[in-house]
Every structure is written in C-alpha cells, then in structure tokens.
C-alpha cells in the first residue's frame, strides 16, 4: 500500500477524510469504490459526505439508495432523517426516525432526537413525554439535558432553561450547543451581562457558530444602550403604559409644567431608542471587535 493510492481501502480512506471534514476528498475516494462489498457503509459514507458539504438533497438520495439495499439500517435511517429535517420535510424526517426507534425503542439519544423533532413541529407535550422516557432509561443523559433546556426555553420558562444551561456547561464548558442555548436564554431574560460573560469567551473557540450571538451580547451590553435598559427588560408596551401613567399622574398631582417636562423627556428617550440601537449595531458590525 502506498500513500495516495485511493484504490486500496477507499471506504477507510473516505472515513479518514470525513473525520477531518474533507467531504470532497471523501467522495473522490468513494468514487473509486463500488457498493458491492459493503453497501450500507458505502452509501452511508456518501450520504455523510454530501451532508457535510451542505448538499442535503444529494445526501438524502444517497441514503435512500443505501436503504433500498439495507432497509433496516439505523445509521442510514438517521442520516436520511437529518437530511429531511434540514430540507424542512418534517413528516419524512419523523418517518425515518421512527424506523430507527422501532428497532431501538429504549435508546435515549434517539428518543431525545425525536423529542427535538416534534418540538420543532410545536408538539411540546409529546416532546416532554419523550424526554421523560429518555430520562427513565438514562437519568444522566446529556442529550436529555439539552432537550430539557430547549423545551424550557420554548415554553418560556427562561429561569429553568438558564439553570439547565449552567448545569450543561458545568459538565463541559466548551459545549457550543449549551453555550448557544444559555446565551440566547439569558439575552431573552434581559440578563445581558451574564449572557456576554458566557458567550464571548466561548466564541473564541467557535466563532463561526457563536459569533453572531456574542456580537449581539456585546451590542446589548454597550454603554450607549444602558439608558434603554427598561425597554430591554420589560418590553415596549409595559414601558409605554408606565411612562404615560406617570405623566398623567404627575399632571394631576403635581404641576402641568413638570408633566410636560416628563413628556418631553420620554419623547426624547423614544427617539433615542429608535436611532441609537441600529446605528450602534452597524458600527459594531463594521468595526468587527
């Protein structure tokens, strides 16, 4: 065997290329192989390579070819489900995933994956049942912890979601998924400083996935936005009611002059809230750091 001899052990070579995220080279190695020897592995590698190269349609077709030969192959069913999900074909994704689950009904990772899929389709109760089942099988499953955090977030329970995210990161501080979910939850809660502390250091390790969130955290913690904190914390409608109420009460109980000053101040604050954030956002993005 000599290096670069793609005709020898092409499937193993393709696996090596996929490990280092080189899908095109993996496909080139597979082009020198035939599916006859190990059809499941051959089609699986082709599907994974296409998926890695952001070609879900081609990956789905490759997986389908493999499933035509090995209809019960769990890895192929999972790859096809992933392809369908990426293409937004949720029903087909569910069907493929159920094909795998029928064979491994007690596998927590599969249960959680199914839970994420149905949660994406809005079926939170069903997702919770799947989560409970996964936790029954493996109470320490990280997949289950991730799903629980996602469901808390989708249900609007930011406090529980943030708590779950902190537990995930306590086990693995470099878990990009955990960082992203926790950062997003903290930003939603208006806890911008905490979000920045979590996301910006993590973005140094994975800027491509976490860069956008880290940039958002930086913008929201910028000193120019401090005056807008009530807006970010409570939302525009409660703040509007509060301001108008205060102006009216001041007009009744104090003097119209004070009330007018308050009204003008509120108006200036509103203009500030319209003008400054977009300008700041553009500036931060352009400046780049």
């Amino acid at each position, binding site marked *: *065997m*000599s*290096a*670069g001899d*793609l005709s*020898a*052990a*092409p*499937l*193993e*070579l393709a*696996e*090596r*290329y*996929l*490990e*280092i*995220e*080189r899908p095109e*080279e993996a496909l080139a190695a597979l082009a020198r192989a035939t599916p006859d020897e190990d059809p499941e592995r051959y089609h699986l590698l082709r599907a994974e390579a296409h998926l890695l190269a952001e070609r879900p349609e081609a990956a789905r077709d490759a997986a389908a070819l493999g499933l035509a030969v090995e209809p019960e192959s769990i890895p192929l069913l999972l790859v096809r489900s992933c392809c369908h999900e990426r293409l937004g074909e949720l029903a087909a994704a569910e069907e493929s995933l159920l094909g795998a689950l029928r064979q491994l009904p007690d596998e927590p990772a599969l249960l959680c994956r199914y839970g994420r899929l149905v949660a994406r389709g809005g079926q939170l109760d069903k997702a919770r049942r799947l989560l409970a089942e996964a936790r029954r099988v493996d109470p320490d499953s990280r997949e289950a912890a991730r799903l629980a955090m996602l469901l808390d977030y989708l249900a609007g329970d930011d406090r529980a979601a943030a708590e779950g995210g902190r537990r995930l990161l306590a086990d693995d501080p*470099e878990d990009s998924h955990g960082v992203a979910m926790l950062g997003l939850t903290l930003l939603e809660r208006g806890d911008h400083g905490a979000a920045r502390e979590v996301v*910006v250091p993590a*973005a*140094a*390790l994975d*800027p*491509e996935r*976490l*860069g956008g969130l*880290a*940039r958002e955290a930086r913008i929201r913690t910028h000193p120019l936005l401090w005056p807008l904190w009530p807006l970010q914390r409570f939302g525009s409608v409660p703040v509007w009611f509060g301001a108008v109420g205060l102006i009216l009460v001041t007009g009744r109980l104090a003097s119209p002059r004070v009330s007018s000053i308050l009204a003008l101040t509120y108006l200036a604050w509103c203009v500030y809230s319209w003008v400054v954030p977009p300008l700041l956002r553009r500036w931060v993005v352009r400046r*780049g*750091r």
Partner: protein
Amino acid sequence: MSDRVRALLDALALSPASVPLRLMVIELLLAEGRGDEAAAQLDEIGGGGEPNRGEPNAAEALQGAKLAMQAGRLERALELLEAAKRQGAVEGVAELERSANAALAERGVRRLRVVRTGEGSGPPPAPVGERPTVTFADVGGLEDVKKTIHRRIVMPFRRPELYAAYGRRAGGGVLLFGPPGCGKTLLARATAGECGVPFLNVRMEEILDPYFGQSERNLHAAFESARAQAPCVLFLDELDAIAFSRRKHRGAAGRPLVDQLLQELDAIGADNRDLLVLGATNALWDVDDALLRPGRFDRLVFVPPPDVAARREILGILLRGKPQAGLDLAALAAETPLMSGADLRSLAERAIDRVIEEALEGGAEPPLSQAHLRSALAETRPSTLEWLQRARSYVEFANQAGLYEEVAAFLKSKDVKAAKRWNPPPRA
C-alpha cells in the same frame, strides 16, 4: 594486537559471513589505533553477492557507516549508508549523512545525497527534492509578504554567519495562510528558489492512508527524506488536513498524525538543522493549536488577495500574446478588488470565450476588448469573500493571541472597502 582481537580474527576466519563479528573486530581495531587494518575489514562488509562476505542488515550497515566515519573512510561510509537505506533504515541516517557530507566538503568532494530507493513493504518512497527555478520575481505583487519572507526565511540561508552571530539559524517552521487561490504554493516554491535549496512538496494525499499507523509512517519518511537532503524546504500543503485540530476531530484515528507531526517538528530523535518546514493552509482556524506554539510553526505569514498592482500584473501575464485592442488593464484591476489569481484567470477565460463565440458567429476574428472583459466581470465574483467573512469572525472573537492581526489590518484596507462599494457592471 591484543589477544581479544586475535581470538576474534580467528573466529572470523571460521565464520567470514558474520557481519556482527566483523563489526566487533573493526571496533576493537579502531580502539587500538589500527586504522588501516580496520579499513581493510570495512571493505569486507557486504560484497555484492561474493562468497564469504555477509550482507549487513539495516542496523549493521548503519553501525558499519559509523565505524567507517571513525576510520576516515567517508566514501565507504556513504556506501554503507546507501545499503542501510535500501534495508529500510531511517533513524539516524540524516545525521550521519550530514557529518559525512561535512567531512567530504572539507576535502573538496562534491556533496552526495542519500535518498530512499524502492522497497517492498513499509513506508512508500519518500519525496525527492526538486530545485525550483521559480523566484520572487515570478510572483506578481505581494511585495510586503515577499519582503517579510526574504528577511525572516531567505536571508538566514544566504547569510548564516550574520544570523549565527545573534544566535539565530536557518530553518524552523513558517506557516503561510490566506484565502484560496492567492499564491501560497507559488510563494513557497519561490522561497525555496530564493534560498537555492531543494524543495520537497508533500501533499495531503501523499500522507493520509487508510491503514492504521501508515499515515504517521508516511509523514516520518517525508521528514527523514528532507533531513537527508538538508538544507532544504519541506512544504506541507493543506496543513489543516494533516494537522486538523484535535479539538474538532470527528474521530480518533487522525489524532496520532498530529502527534507525529509535533514530534517531527520538535525533532525528537532527529535533527532539523537547516530544514525549513513551510506549511500552507486556507483554514488556519482548523490547524491544531499545538502546532502554532514556539519552536513549531511559530512564524505566521498572511498571504492576502493580490492588491491592485498585483492584479494589473497578473492580468497582463494572463492576456499576454492574445489578440487584443484598447485594453485598460489598470482600470480593470481597479474594478476587481479582492479577486484572487484564480478568479482573474477565470475572468480572462470567460472574456476569451466571448471573443471566440463572436468569431464563430461572425466569421471574423475580433480582438479581445475592454467590453469583453467588463462583460465577463459581471459574472465573476471574488471567491475570497467567503473566506474573509469567516476570517472576520475569528478576528473579532479568537484573536487573543494575535494570530489574526495581519488579517485584521487587511480587513481595514482599501481593497476591502472598495469591494463593499463595488457593484459589478451590468451585462453587455
């Protein structure tokens, strides 16, 4: 002559094919200062199939070469080194070969090189260095990069005494990074040409192997070959594939390859003197962090897309000899910010395709005009944009160690600003 030597010589008379016995005799003779007799015994090792002369295995040939060096038989030492190489010896060969060459150079003998020759199993033939004829004069633009490389890499080879006076020496690791198609490989080749040393190009396909442990052996063989040919430039193209970040690795099989590369760069059990290891990568962020520490690839050189002068020069080279009329390449260069050399080639080819289409339709042979080029420009986007977009995230969030300072400076350059303002001309 001592009794021990006499006894061994008697034994040797009975077993003349025993190489270990003969080596023992030579060693004792040298210890007793009987160089001529030792040299005569050295000649008896390996007789090319002659009866009564044992063929040494790899270790014996290497040992014989060492003793030949001690005896001052340099040519014989190199013959035995060749034999050791043929038998698959790798470790220690480069060092011995260097010593033999140095001694031969003192005698005014032309330098000899030991290169692996074909063999049955085991590592594949290691790359043999070529002497590139390309120099910096053949690389359009990139003046700042060329100047940096000249100072930091070429001059230590050309004036080693100056650098030695300050405790610096030639060689080490240098990593070229930047968007694809911007001339990293050409620059590496030109660097070897400027240094006047052999250039060994090692590509990912030549290293990666499906069988367990074989990739590491291939890499080791490449380094050993380079050491045997030192001073030389060992060029590792697509370094991110060979040394993919262990943190990002999707499996465990490739990790030993990174460990092996680290060992080679650290010269564990070997000597990397006068060996310049040049790496090139499009994705610096995918290269294992350990490789960027001092003593390994500690000099990073950013190779940006060509600037306007370089683009003008590249376009001139691409369109040289083609029928043309009224071309304003300076204007075209100004309209192609961030385009790589590969993009400019694509632009030129598209424009020429249009001319050929016109020739086929009209019968005449129209010259290439500015309109053809501008029409092709409407369909050509700089391929470096995606790279720069990714790099921006790394500059913003992952530049704590200052790896991306040059990229940060480039992102503030006129070209990037011009690219933001630039709109491709409408199609003709």
